[in-house]
């Protein structure tokens, strides 16, 4: 039932393929988490500055993406993304066919999803900073950049780490959906292998174990980071 011999490294088994696939999952997760955090910061900024239009756009974005299945967002970006990029390129006078590679599309799609979750976490932790801190920074004559980097960021990171850890777990698991676009990560690899070997159970259980390892290890890492960043905070 469970064919261990199919999981060896080298040509006889799928071990090395799975190792590369795991690294691909990690790469997509890290890239899209990073891009997602950037998008999330922009979204939070759009929500907290007193501007109705930006706030409306940001709220619309987070509500719609969180209300629609992740698979649908991925399909939309995967099948519709090329058309959008080409029409933008056309504006700049470039008329040739452009095709984004699977990794770019995967990263963008997962980032768009993960940014909505991160933005909620970041907004909550921004609001947790007491007003007095910002006023004190302004009273000291700090400019906007140093307020952001020296006063806001360190505290937001401290407050947001547990929430960001959760978003990371969600993002990591969402990358399994990317398999529908053909990018060879763990899920896609397990489907390919099981089609070749006619043994889905073996490779799907392998995939499950790999995901379990990834989530467990990264959970530990976030725990350590949390302890590190909450130094001086009595917990």
């Amino acid at each position, binding site marked *: 039932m469970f064919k261990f011999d199919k999981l060896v490294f080298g040509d006889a088994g799928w071990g090395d393929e799975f190792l590369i696939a795991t690294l691909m999952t990690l790469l997509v997760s890290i890239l899209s988490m990073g891009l997602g955090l950037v998008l999330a910061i922009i979204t939070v900024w759009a929500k907290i500055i007193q501007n109705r239009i930006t706030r409306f756009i940001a709220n619309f974005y987070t509500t719609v993406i969180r209300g*629609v*299945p992740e698979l649908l967002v991925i399909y939309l970006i995967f099948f519709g993304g090329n*058309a959008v990029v080409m029409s933008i390129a056309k504006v700049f006078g470039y008329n040739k066919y452009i095709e984004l590679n699977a990794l770019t599309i995967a990263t963008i799609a997962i980032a768009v999803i993960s940014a909505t979750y991160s933005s909620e976490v970041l907004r909550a932790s921004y609001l947790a900073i007491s007003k007095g801190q910002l006023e004190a920074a302004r009273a000291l004559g700090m400019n906007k950049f140093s307020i952001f980097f020296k006063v806001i960021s360190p505290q937001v990171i401290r407050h947001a780490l547990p929430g960001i850890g959760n978003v990371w777990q969600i993002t990591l698991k969402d990358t399994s959906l990317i398999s529908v676009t053909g990018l060879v990560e763990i899920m896609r690899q397990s489907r390919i292998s099981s089609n070749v070997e006619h043994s889905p159970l073996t490779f799907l259980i392998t995939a499950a174990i790999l995901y379990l390892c990834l989530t467990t290890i990264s959970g530990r890492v976030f725990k350590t980071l949390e302890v590190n960043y909450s130094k001086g905070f009595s917990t």
Partner: protein
Amino acid sequence: MIEFLNSIQNSLIYKNFFLVLSGLDNTILLLLISLPLGFVLALLFALGRVSKITLLSRTIASYIFVIRGTPLLVQIYLIYFGLGSVKFIRESFLWYALKEPFWCGVIALTINTVAYGAEIFRGGIQSIEKSQVESGLSLGFGKFLLLRKIILPIAIRKVLPSYGNELILMVKATSLVSLTTYMEMTGIARKIMAKTFAPVEAFIAAGILYLFLNFLMVQFVKYLEWKYNPHLRLNN
């Protein structure tokens, strides 16, 4: 004006909308079975998790750990492709359910929501003040009565917001069942896309319907919160 209406009726989104709408009943069918079943099982699992029987509590804890640590897609594939490939399952009565993508979807969704739900309910049960349980005991309540009259009502209404989140995640999760050839809204949208080569129109039509479904779900949870938390209402 009539021209405008005609142009809307001829537009691809309008046509797709009704095509995708025909998959709404399949999506709702998935939810109608897996959500109530998941709710009841999650309560039982949560009670098992906080029980003093170590073996039971440990088993449920590891179940929750495994399910929450793996993507739902893996679970769906494991049940649909994985279990179907085992010979003695194919020969047993289980095969009647497991050969249908619909029942595979229901089973996978239920297994998934039970793990998340059990963890939510455990939080609710553990946050009940001791004095409430003690006052029940002092009134001579038995274990079962205590559970039915004090622990469960308080725990459930406390966790309604987070359980509502889980319900919305489940509505979104039904879209993954389309990958097992089950034709619900996402499956139909993908079929339309393959036919018309117009991905944006097809998926926007499906997206609108999912948003609507989730909107209904949010209103439903809000109503439950209002109904079962009378002490938190601002004006009576």
